[in-house]
């Protein structure tokens, strides 16, 4: 597998999307900066380095993944608007980047997400309602990363790139052929930790795919505030390949991530994938994108919607019938109900939970504070509602 490397350029070049191509042209298209296998119109295109064979069933599966992911995200966001606590980022628009990459890796591979890869979590088989605890404010994650080889969400941006690299160093020591995937955003690419992860991964030849979701924005800051050249180019300076893929094209993301995982697990060291996509919603429910971006931009990207695109492909290729779409809508509604129900019935943790899990092997101060707090609570039980002045 070869990966293009081009000289720095002030503005990213958009891959040309042709409506019609002759067979000859399809055989040897010019190598575009961004890998694309599916145009926004749902038409297949070929790429010299990345081929992908698909069955109609696989296409439907990817479509279902994306639809359910979007619905899950919408539901979680709506609950927050409805007054539920917590703030989580919305991934609307990034379903192809998440599902394509999530479906590219195997069970034995290991994924380090940043803090909102619900789509990847879905692919890993993580029970969706487990993801809600942290945004509902009942825990900070709390699932077992080893159950699905899906690490906890990491909120401090960039940190997990190092954890993934260390994990991959361990994989290499074990002689295992697992691939490790580290997700991060365009904004996070500026963090020193991500650069150090690049350095360590390259020097130790660690089997880690750095998967950067460039959704054009870091809250209110456009990607140009992080780099004046396309982000995938950063890899070359650290001695490993980088590639940009159309992040709204689930087939291209799947093919490229699969190739990247193969690259790293065959001992060639790390690889960077930049998925060029777009955050269609607000950063969080308390964000207000009208302050910093224009409606026209959203319109441009709505035309490239990853779900719409695959639907057009399914229709074009006659890979799905009406019943499929109707069934999926029902499934989606059911899932939404289940999410709402799960949120509604999610029990608040017991107050004493504060004193659990700070240490694995115990700590006398925690014991002392636990006992003190229990006595304090017992005081209320003895004397009624205490001073009754809670609420400041």
């Amino acid at each position, binding site marked *: 597998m070869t990966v293009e490397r081009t000289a720095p350029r002030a503005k990213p070049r958009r891959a040309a999307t042709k409506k019609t191509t002759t067979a000859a042209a399809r055989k040897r298209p010019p190598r575009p900066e961004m890998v694309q296998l599916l145009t926004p119109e749902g038409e297949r295109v070929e790429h010299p380095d990345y081929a992908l064979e698909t069955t109609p069933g696989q296409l439907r599966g990817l479509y279902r993944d994306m639809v359910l992911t979007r619905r899950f995200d919408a539901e979680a966001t709506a609950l927050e608007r409805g007054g539920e*606590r*917590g*703030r*989580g980022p919305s991934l609307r628009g990034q379903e192809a980047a998440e599902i394509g990459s999530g479906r590219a890796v195997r069970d034995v591979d290991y994924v380090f997400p940043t*803090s909102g890869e619900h789509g990847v979590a879905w692919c890993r088989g993580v029970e969706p309602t487990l993801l809600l*605890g*942290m*945004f*509902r*404010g*009942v*825990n*900070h994650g709390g699932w077992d990363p080893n159950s699905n080889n899906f690490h906890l969400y990491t*909120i*401090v*941006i960039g940190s997990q790139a190092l954890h993934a690299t260390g994990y991959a160093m361990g994989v290499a020591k074990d002689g295992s052929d697992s691939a490790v995937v580290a997700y991060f955003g365009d*904004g*996070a690419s*500026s*963090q*020193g*930790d991500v650069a150090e992860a690049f350095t360590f991964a390259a020097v130790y030849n660690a089997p880690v795919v750095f998967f950067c979701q460039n959704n054009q924005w*870091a*809250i*209110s*800051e456009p990607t140009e*505030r*992080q780099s004046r050249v396309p982000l995938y180019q950063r890899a070359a300076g650290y001695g490993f390949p980088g590639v940009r893929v159309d992040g709204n094209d689930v087939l291209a993301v799947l093919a490229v991530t699969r190739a990247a995982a193969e690259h790293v697990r065959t001992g060639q060291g790390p690889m960077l994938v930049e998925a060029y996509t777009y955050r269609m919603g607000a950063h969080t429910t*308390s*964000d*207000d994108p009208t*302050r*910093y971006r224009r409606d026209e931009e959203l319109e441009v990207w709505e035309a490239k919607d990853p779900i719409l695109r695959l639907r057009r492909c399914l229709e074009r290729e006659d890979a799905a019938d009406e019943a499929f779409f109707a069934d999926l809508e029902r499934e989606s509604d059911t899932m939404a109900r289940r999410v709402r129900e799960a949120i509604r019935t999610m029990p*608040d*943790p017991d*107050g004493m*939970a*504060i*004193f659990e899990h*700070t240490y694995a092997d115990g*700590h006398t*101060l*925690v014991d002392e*504070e636990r006992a003190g*707090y229990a006595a*304090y609570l017992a*005081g*209320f039980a003895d004397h009624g509602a*205490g*001073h009754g*002045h*809670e*609420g*400041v």
Partner: protein
Amino acid sequence: MAAERMAMAKALNSSLRKALESDPKVLVMGEDVGKLGGVFRITDGLQKDFGEDRVIDTPLAESGIIGTAIGLALRGYRPIAEIQFDGFVYPAYDQIVTQLAKMHARSLGKVKLPVVVRIPFGGGIGAVEHHSESPEALFAHVAGLKIVAPGNPADAYWMLQQAIECDDPVIFFEPKARYWDKGEVDTAGIPGPLHAAKVVRPGTDLTLVAYGPTVKTALAAAVAAEEDGVSLEVIDLRSVSPIDFDTLQWSVEKTGRLVVAHEAPVFFGAGAEVAARITERCFYHLQAPVLRVGGFHAPYPPARLEEEYLPGLDRVLECVDRALAY
């Protein structure tokens, strides 16, 4: 008359505006401080009025923010850097404690670094992990830094002005849970010294010290205690480095009892330093040990548990009761 009732967020915004107006060397920098006006809108409208050259959206790298702020200060600027949330200051910790705090000494006084680091801190806003921490003790232990935290809009306005004017680096902790609380701000007034503690409610039976978000709790506790016939003297510490021990001593010599309340974990927190020093200064006056009430020795908990974790009214009053029981 320049006195006006406003929220702390507005007071901070006005104070930044004032500084940008009065000194062309003042800069505001940080993540999302420009068009968005910051995630808490503290810098709202400033980039529009002062330009991208003075109100600067930075790459997402906290060490880079503080490191370049130091460089800008070396060039003669007075940068005010915003760290988006308390829990995101640690990537910049090295630049703050190793460079920002020590360069004046390293140069034997030839270099001055008038940098203000604004950090919204504390909990009570129902946020996810890393958005509710109180790391002030981790900076107060480090010589070369000054640490302050306003407890009301007027102090927010004036203390920020004074921090910006100060030739030393100042870590300016803003109690984010109090951003929308209103108070009288007299922008024409004459502020007291930046590092002086203030008796915000006089009393006779026990001194209750708080700063930042816990000042409001302490005042509420004093009201509640009064109903029970107990007179609390509430002191707003305002400055965590230096600490105005003189004012505390003066109060404790009168009341004989001291309770310190802060959101940060009690272990190695500001309360420990206050307790140790006041006990030394007031050994023969204290009728009870100095007691502390604050966060537990645990990571800041998920939102649904923060009421349990934070030193709220009941926990403060219980601590006061314990001190009075001696």
